[in-house]
C-alpha cells in the first residue's frame, strides 16, 4: 500500500511538470497547451516561427474534424519557417477533452471558444502579436460568426476564408448547382460516367428548398465526388495516416470518437439554420478568399458571397484551377495555398 501511495505521489510530480508553462519565442517552435471553456479542454499546438510575432490560427472543418490534418509537410516547410501556426482542436474534436458537455456544442459557444483561444495566444506570446484567422470548410462558420461582431475585429489582422462556408442553406444551393454542372461536364467527357450519372440522378431528385436531411446528403455526395476527378487527388486521409500519427502524437481514438460524436450532435441542425451573409457588411478587416475549382462541398460561389458582401477595403480572392475541397492538402494545390497565405500575411501583418 505504501508503495502505491509513493507511486501516486511520484506520478503527480512527474505529470505536474508537463503542465508547467513553457513559452518559446524563436524559430522551429512546437508547443502544446490547452484552453478550457464550458466543459471542454481544447488542444492548441503552436508550431513555427514565433519570433515573427505573427500567428496564423487554423480553424478546422467538420464540425468534429481535427487540426491534426492541417499540420502537413506544406504548412511545415512553406508557412512555419516564416510565421507561427496555431492548430486549434475545437471542442469535441481531435484531442480536445471533456466530460458531459454536449449541451455546449453550439455555434455561439464555439465562437466564444475562438475568442478565448485568441486571448490566450496573446496572453502567452504578447499583445503585439498579429493574429490571422484561417477558416477551412465548417471553420468558415465560427470565423464569420466571430468577425461579424465589430469589437472582435480589433483582435485579428486578417481573415482567410479557405474552401469555407458561412451560410449552409446558400451552400446547399451552390453545392447542388455545382454537382449538376460537373455531372453534365464529366458525362460529356466520358469520365467516370456511371458514377456521375448516379450523382445527376441524385440531384434531379432533390430540388430546393432542401431539407436538413437533404443538406446532409448533398454534403456527403459532394465529398464523394472529390474521388471522381483526374485533375487532382483526394489524399488527405492517406497522407494523414502515413505521416501524422507518430510525428504529432495524434490521439487517434480521441479524434475518431470526437468526429463520431460531432456528427451526431444537435450542432449540425443549428448550423443548417445559421447564416452570416446578412451581417458580412460589418466585416472591415483584410480578407482573402481561396477556393478550388473542383470543390462542390464549399464551391467558389460561396467564397464570392463573402468577398462581395464584406466592407473590407483590402480584399482579394483566389481560385485554384486544380484543387478540390482540401486545397492545403497533398494532391490538391498546397503550394498555391501557402504562397497566397504568406503573401496575404506579409501585406497586412
Amino acid at each position: 500500500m505504501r508503495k502505491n501511495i509513493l507511486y501516486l505521489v511520484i506520478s503527480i510530480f512527474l505529470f505536474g511538470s508537463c503542465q508547467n508553462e513553457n513559452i518559446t519565442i524563436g524559430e522551429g517552435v512546437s508547443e502544446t497547451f490547452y484552453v478550457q471553456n464550458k466543459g471542454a479542454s481544447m488542444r492548441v499546438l503552436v508550431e513555427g516561427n514565433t519570433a515573427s510575432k505573427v500567428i496564423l490560427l487554423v480553424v478546422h472543418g467538420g464540425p468534429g474534424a481535427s487540426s491534426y490534418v492541417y499540420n502537413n509537410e506544406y504548412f511545415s516547410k512553406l508557412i512555419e519557417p516564416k510565421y507561427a501556426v496555431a492548430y486549434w482542436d475545437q471542442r469535441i474534436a481531435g484531442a480536445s477533452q471533456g466530460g458531459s458537455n454536449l449541451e455546449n456544442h453550439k455555434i455561439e459557444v464555439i465562437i466564444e471558444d475562438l475568442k478565448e483561444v485568441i486571448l490566450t495566444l496573446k496572453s502567452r506570446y504578447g499583445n503585439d502579436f498579429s493574429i490571422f484567422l484561417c477558416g477551412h470548410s465548417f471553420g468558415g462558420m465560427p470565423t464569420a460568426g466571430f468577425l461579424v461582431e465589430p469589437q472582435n475585429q480589433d483582435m485579428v489582422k486578417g481573415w482567410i476564408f479557405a474552401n469555407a462556408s458561412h451560410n449552409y442553406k446558400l451552400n446547399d444551393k451552390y453545392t447542388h448547382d455545382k454537382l449538376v454542372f460537373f455531372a453534365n461536364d464529366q458525362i460529356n467527357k466520358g469520365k467516370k460516367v456511371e458514377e456521375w450519372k448516379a450523382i445527376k440522378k441524385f440531384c434531379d431528385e432533390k430540388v430546393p428548398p432542401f431539407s436538413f436531411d437533404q443538406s446532409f446528403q448533398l454534403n456527403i455526395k459532394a465529398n464523394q465526388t472529390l474521388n471522381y476527378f483526374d485533375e487532382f487527388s483526394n489524399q488527405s486521409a492517406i497522407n494523414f495516416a502515413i505521416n501524422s500519427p507518430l510525428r504529432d502524437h495524434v490521439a487517434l481514438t480521441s479524434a475518431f470518437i470526437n468526429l463520431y460524436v460531432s456528427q451526431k450532435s444537435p450542432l449540425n441542425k443549428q448550423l443548417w439554420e445559421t447564416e452570416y451573409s446578412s451581417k458580412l457588411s460589418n466585416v472591415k478587416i483584410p480578407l482573402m478568399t481561396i477556393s478550388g475549382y473542383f470543390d462542390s462541398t464549399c464551391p467558389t460561389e460561396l467564397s464570392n458571397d463573402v468577398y462581395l458582401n464584406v466592407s473590407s477595403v483590402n480584399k482579394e480572392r483566389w481560385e485554384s484551377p486544380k484543387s478540390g475541397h482540401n486545397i492545403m492538402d497533398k494532391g490538391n494545390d498546397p503550394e498555391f495555398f501557402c504562397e497566397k497565405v504568406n503573401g496575404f500575411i506579409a501585406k497586412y501583418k
Partner: protein
Amino acid sequence: MNAQNDTLINPNRSFSTNLKISYNSSLIYPGLRIGTETLIKRIELSKIKKSGEKQIFRDRLFTTNLSMYHHKTFHTNIYATVGYTFRRTNNKGVFIEFCPEIGYSRTFLSGTTYVVNDNGNVSVRKLAGYNYLLASVGTGVGYDFSKTKSKPLSIFCKVNFIAMYPNNDFLYMRPAIELGFVYKPHAFLLHKAKMSKKSKNRRHEN
C-alpha cells in the same frame, strides 16, 4: 463417452497474494501497472487421454490494479481498478486469461491549461484534467514458471481495451498492451480459496 468426477480438495489450504508489475504501453506511449492477484477459486481438471494424463488449472482471481500511461501532448491517465480474472493454465505452465475490470480514472492534460474569465483575463489552471468511470477488458497469454521449474514467477503479455465515461458525452476508448511479471511470494496476505478437483475419463463403449 465422458465421465466426470468432482471432489473438493484441501479446504484449509492458504494461498499467498501475488504481486504483479508490468509495462503498460498504450501502444507507443509508456506507462506502468502494479497490482495484486488473490486466488478465489481453483479447479484442477485432470483429463485422461490415450497420450496420458493432462492437468489443467482453472483459476478465478480477484485483482487490484493501479495503472498509468503518459500520452505526450494529450494526457496522463492514472487509474485504479478491481477485476476478476479467468485464467486457464496447462501442466506445461502456459496460461491464457480474460480479465474484465472496473474502476476510476483521473486524467491530467499534457500541457499548460488556461482559463479566461469574463473580463478577458487569462490564468493558468493547475492540475487540469477529468474524472472518469473506467472499464476495461483484457486478454492475454503467459508462462507460469512455478508449474515446471518451481520458480514463483510468471510472465505475461496482455492486450486491454479501456473505455472511459463520460468523455464529451460519450466514451473514450483506447487499447493498451501490458508486458509484465507476476511474483508469488511465499506468504503475503494469506487467504483461503475454494479448491476442487475434477477428472474426465474417456470410456469406450462398443
